[in-house]
């Protein structure tokens, strides 16, 4: 029987040769990632209540990113619990203050094609860019994984999203995902596996593919998969991953799909989502009369090295408009260091950017840069739910790093293609 990539990944984890969509299976977990918010501060008391230990500390990765920098007693307490617990539980894979978990996890070589992984965060589908079946779970479910090494799963159907052609200059993976959220809504993925394919996907860099998989959360899929290829292999080799098997982890031609959609990337215009939902997306031209007072480049979705490069391509030689605050929170320390060494960061700072720590910051309502009620922001982040980044009166628009950078320069929501021309 022909199997999709998702079925093959789930079947291996379930110890079966094939699986059927809709069936309930129990999967062995290869890797469990936690951060400081949903991690030790929540699971440690429950582990103690059960008198249980972590099933395999080498399969756990702990990353601090939500409550850093820890500026108040509550945040300091949460971070201290994470640090103490890493020692007590024998977690060797502890990455402390090095950036946002979804970016640090692959950067440290923890992911490769064929794995089955869970993360204590909704943007965990990011791992799908590497051919890992990865999805988000809550803290109590993480406790279940930590105690048993297992998790139940309803075998997903697959929704295939094909992008033909090639993205035009000034367009990015973020535009593709905002388009999909606008077209199908935030439950378009139906909590099934979404697989991205086609020539425009093959042409994307690894970090752009991560943006697609990451925003599968907003699209409503459980996992967002991209079959591994030579782009995957060379990126993983560069971060020290060995035994990379791209051949096994491909869907079979003719495998049954829940749905299949095809779009031409070449004709996609930049997309912007209006408050308060990524599903309220439209072509950038529909927002030309919106004046902004903040441009936010941050988060796992929108401040990786490639995202910073996109913003710099637009901002080079320009400054943010008077009255516009430009904030940049690089997603990881490694990406920030590379951006600094190659001059990308300098371009952003010369444009007037304020540099924020390598952490989740305002994207998830944390840190010192929360939006007040007067804020009208365009942001590279994934979600613009009411109140998410601070005041419930704040207006948050979403766009690509190109579009956010262009809007910073003009002070209104702007089409980056005009500045890149």
């Amino acid at each position: 029987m022909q199997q999709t990539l998702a079925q093959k990944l789930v079947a291996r984890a379930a110890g079966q040769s094939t699986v059927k969509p809709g069936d309930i299976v129990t999967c062995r977990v290869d890797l469990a990632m936690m951060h400081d918010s949903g991690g030790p501060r929540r699971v440690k008391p429950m582990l103690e209540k059960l008198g249980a230990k972590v099933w395999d500390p080498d399969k756990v990765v702990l990353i601090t990113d939500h409550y850093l920098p820890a500026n108040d007693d509550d945040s300091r307490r949460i971070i201290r619990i994470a640090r103490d617990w890493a020692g007590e539980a024998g977690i060797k894979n502890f990455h402390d203050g090095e950036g946002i978990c979804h970016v640090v996890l692959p950067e440290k070589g923890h992911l490769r094609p064929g794995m089955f992984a869970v993360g204590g965060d909704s943007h965990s589908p990011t791992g799908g860019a590497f051919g890992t079946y990865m999805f988000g779970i809550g803290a109590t479910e993480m406790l279940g994984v930590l105690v048993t090494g297992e998790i139940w799963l309803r075998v997903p159907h697959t929704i295939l999203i094909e992008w033909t052609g090639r993205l035009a200059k000034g367009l990015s993976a973020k535009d593709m995902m905002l388009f999909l959220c606008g077209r199908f809504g935030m439950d378009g993925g139906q909590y099934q596996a979404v697989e991205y394919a086609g020539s425009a996907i093959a042409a994307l860099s690894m970090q752009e593919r991560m943006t697609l998989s990451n925003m599968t959360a907003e699209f409503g899929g459980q996992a967002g998969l991209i079959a591994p290829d030579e782009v995957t292999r060379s990126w993983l080799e560069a971060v020290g991953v060995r035994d990379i098997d791209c051949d096994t982890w491909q869907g079979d031609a003719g495998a049954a799909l829940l749905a299949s959609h095809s779009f031409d990337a070449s004709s996609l215009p930049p997309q912007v989502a209006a408050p308060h939902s990524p599903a309220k997306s439209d072509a950038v031209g529909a927002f030309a009369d919106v004046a902004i007072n903040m441009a936010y480049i941050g988060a796992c979705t929108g401040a990786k090295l490639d995202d910073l490069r996109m913003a710099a391509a637009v901002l080079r030689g320009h400054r943010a408009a008077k009255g516009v605050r430009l904030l940049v929170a690089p997603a990881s320390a490694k990406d920030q260091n590379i951006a600094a060494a190659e001059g990308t960061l300098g371009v952003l700072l010369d444009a007037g950017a304020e540099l924020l720590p390598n952490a989740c910051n305002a994207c998830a309502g944390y840190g010192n840069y929360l939006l007040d009620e007067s804020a009208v922001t365009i942001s590279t982040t994934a979600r613009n739910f009411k109140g998410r980044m601070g005041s419930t009166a704040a207006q948050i628009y979403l766009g690509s790093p190109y579009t956010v950078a262009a809007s910073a320069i003009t002070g209104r929501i702007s089409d980056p293609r005009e500045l890149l021309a």
Partner: protein
Amino acid sequence: MSGKAWVFGDNLDTDMLAPGIYMKFGIEEIAKHCLEALEPRFAGEVKPGDIVVGGKNFGMGSSREQAAGALMHLGVAAVIAPSYAGLFYRNAFNLGLPLLVCADAGSIRPDDVLVVDAERGHITNQTQHTQLACEAIPPHLMAMVRDGGLLGHLEKRLKREKDAPA
């Protein structure tokens, strides 16, 4: 179970249920702000046994299980909606909060008195004198609700393993 309906719309998100700016606190504090952006009266006036009724894709957004935990802390007995975000669905059952999938949830009006039989997947709307059918809750999830959630379920499993002869 029986209680008064609090009715909300489609795509109710986890930032509404558990706002990020309160996430550093315990569930008591988070629950005080549950749904305040939509209905400021909710946290103060909801009574134990009341039922939250939502639209499609209820609970979309974050993995934070406090979204379900805040409802439970306030005494909400069940949620009724035509569909749920997958992560919220798993989290709610893991905490022991039953979610009913009901295609006709839209017929329920604010303050209707509902009698919910989660095991049978059946709702009686006493105010409107109507009966609503729900999808049956999968047996492995209903077993978890009976154990008080995944924590209670694990407690039983570990005890069973410990007591079993080697």
